[in-house]
């Protein structure tokens, strides 16, 4: 009898001491789930959810609430209307409290409108278009629910890419004793590259580099051998890439196959993925690109996150996995404000400095990340014998040397 009574008391005690899970914080993760971008959105969010729930959940006022994720396939790579339908569904049917994700700028701009109509806090984790932040500046009352968590806006991406290009050109000057390195610009024909191409054509001569030509293949081109033949004729030292589509793989592979005596650096979104090496059949050596995650000390949290991610998913994270940071930012804001009310969370995030895993984030009046090397500007990596090796910014602990092809 006594044993039964003690057992009942113990069970009751446990029940009372356990956090109440009756209510959750529902977060919709928006991304093209059949693609690498969506997979990383989801994986980063899962890691944050599991970590927070394991530690007891989010303190909302006097109660602990666990995180519930809703996986929302936006299919935005194929269809912008699919994306707006998906976010509508997340808001109206799934009744998500918060929205995180997005990748393709055209789709995110459309999804932003839906989220703002519903006055839902929307943390972007993929699109770079400036207009997303400009909307906040021009019509704060409507667009204040938007914050950009990754990447920096397109103009700031350009600042980063030119900073790294300066480092690469410096190495060519030293190694080849060539005072004015020759640069071939290879940019896919897309809206996002227009300003960057114009800036490159204008800035590179000022940076003591000679632009030998600008080639603009389609983002889905399956062959760039004609372009590469022309680049070889022009004796380019650097192939400056602005590529987001599969043409980035084609370029890397064909440069390797033809052993083009030049290094490729710039933005090559496909080059950021672990799958790049396999997709180029091992020919993508020396291809380098801007990136976000590597086992380097961008913040005190970066290395542990990247290692845990690799262990769990058997691959390295891409920048979309910064959904992890987005959820941590939300948690921090909710716990400070003690509410889920978006209007009360906005001023908290605006004043926040968040030391995440991708960088150290603060926001400007456009709710864009404040650009700073070593904080939000990201890193640059180079493919070296099947491994993605980080080489920039050099002051960050863990960076390794940039390598040149043997023929250079």
């Amino acid at each position, binding site marked *: 009898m006594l044993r039964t009574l003690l057992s009942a008391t113990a069970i009751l005690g446990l029940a009372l001491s356990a956090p109440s899970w009756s209510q959750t914080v529902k977060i919709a993760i928006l991304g093209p789930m059949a*693609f690498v971008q969506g*997979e990383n959105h989801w994986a980063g969010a899962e890691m944050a959810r599991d970590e927070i729930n394991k530690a007891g959940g989010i303190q909302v006022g006097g109660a602990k609430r666990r995180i519930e994720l809703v996986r929302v396939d936006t299919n935005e790579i194929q269809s912008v209307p699919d994306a707006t339908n998906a976010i509508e569904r997340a808001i109206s049917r799934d009744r998500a409290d918060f929205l995180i994700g997005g990748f393709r700028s055209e789709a995110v701009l459309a999804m932003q409108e839906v989220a703002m109509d519903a006055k839902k806090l929307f943390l972007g984790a993929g699109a770079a278009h400036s207009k997303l932040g400009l909307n906040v500046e021009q019509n704060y009352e409507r667009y204040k629910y938007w914050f950009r968590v990754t990447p920096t806006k397109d103009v700031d991406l350009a600042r980063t890419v030119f900073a790294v290009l300066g480092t690469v050109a410096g190495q060519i000057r030293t190694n080849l004793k060539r005072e004015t390195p020759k640069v071939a610009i290879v940019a896919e024909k897309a809206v996002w590259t227009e300003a960057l191409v114009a800036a490159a054509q204008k800035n590179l001569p000022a940076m003591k580099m000679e632009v030998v030509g600008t080639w603009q293949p389609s983002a889905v081109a*399956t062959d760039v*051998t004609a372009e590469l033949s022309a680049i*070889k004729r022009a004796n380019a030292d650097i192939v400056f890439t602005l590529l987001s589509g599969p043409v980035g793989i084609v370029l890397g592979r064909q440069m390797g*196959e033809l052993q083009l005596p030049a290094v490729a650096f710039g933005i090559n979104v496909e080059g950021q993925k672990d799958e790049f090496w396999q997709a180029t059949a091992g020919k993508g050596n020396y291809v380098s690109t801007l990136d976000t995650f590597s086992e380097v000390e961008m913040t005190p949290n970066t290395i542990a996150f990247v290692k845990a991610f690799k262990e769990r998913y058997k691959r390295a994270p891409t920048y979309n996995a910064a959904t992890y940071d987005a959820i941590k930012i939300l948690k921090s804001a909710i716990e400070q404000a003690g509410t889920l009310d978006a209007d009360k969370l906005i001023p908290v995030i605006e004043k926040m400095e968040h030391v995440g895993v991708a960088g150290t984030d603060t926001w400007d009046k456009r709710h864009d990340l404040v650009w700073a090397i070593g904080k939000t500007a990201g890193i640059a990596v180079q493919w070296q014998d099947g491994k993605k090796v980080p080489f920039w910014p050099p002051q960050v602990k863990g960076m390794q040397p940039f390598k040149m092809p043997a023929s250079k």
Partner: protein
Amino acid sequence: MFQDILITGLVNGGVYALLAIGFSLIFGVARIVNIAHTAFYMLAAYALYALAVKGGVPLAAAIPLSVIAVVAISLLCYKLVIEPVRRHDAAVLIATIALGLVFQETLLISFGGHYLGVPAIADGFASVLGVRVSYQRLVVLAAVALVLAATWLLLNRTRLGLAIRAAANDLEVANLMGINVERVAMLTVAFSAALAAVAGAAVAPVFVVDPFMWLPPLVTMLAIVVLGGLGSLKGSLIGAFIIGFVEAITVFAVPSGAYLKGAVALTIMVVVLLIRPEGLYGVAFEEER
């Protein structure tokens, strides 16, 4: 620059020819506008990836296995999808578009939207007139020659070829002469799919394998067969090289307009349709049976 255009145009034209010949054959013989032709080429590329990269099967075995698998699928598709609507051209067109989309979505679900690579049969490059050409592209050129020879032999040196040509010439008379025209059409589809599969296996190591890889070559291939003349194998071959050279000239003459390669090919198609609707070697529409 001249030699760059010459070599690049020749090699790229070879890649296009490999695709266009099979499409042209099935149209010229069976009068089936098979929009899913490049989807069979995509299936072969995926089969090769699954066998050679995922399964560890040696390329020498993986290539014939991929071709056999694609031919089997094409026969199934013919029986289930094409044959029931074969007498209605528009229905065949729509059915084959649907087939292509079904393959695309199936691969998207099975393999995800990842870009995949298949190892080359031969690594390295040769220098031709000072222009670097990868060995794999030379393999593609060799495959074009083989495919052409095989097609010529089949059509001109076998009883099946005779039946195919008879059916192409006059379906009703061929039927009255005792030729099983349905069977001939089915075998033509299988042979055409085999050509697409060979193209997929040869070209997969040159291109990137993804669930949408069937669409860009489809547009170029349509431009080629219209330029060469619908159903004309010789026309397809010449059309493929013309498009290959035009694309190379576009890239070298207007580097910042390299993305216009496809548009230039389509423009040529439209101009040909306006000036010479039957193409270079095709049968004039009004003369068709």
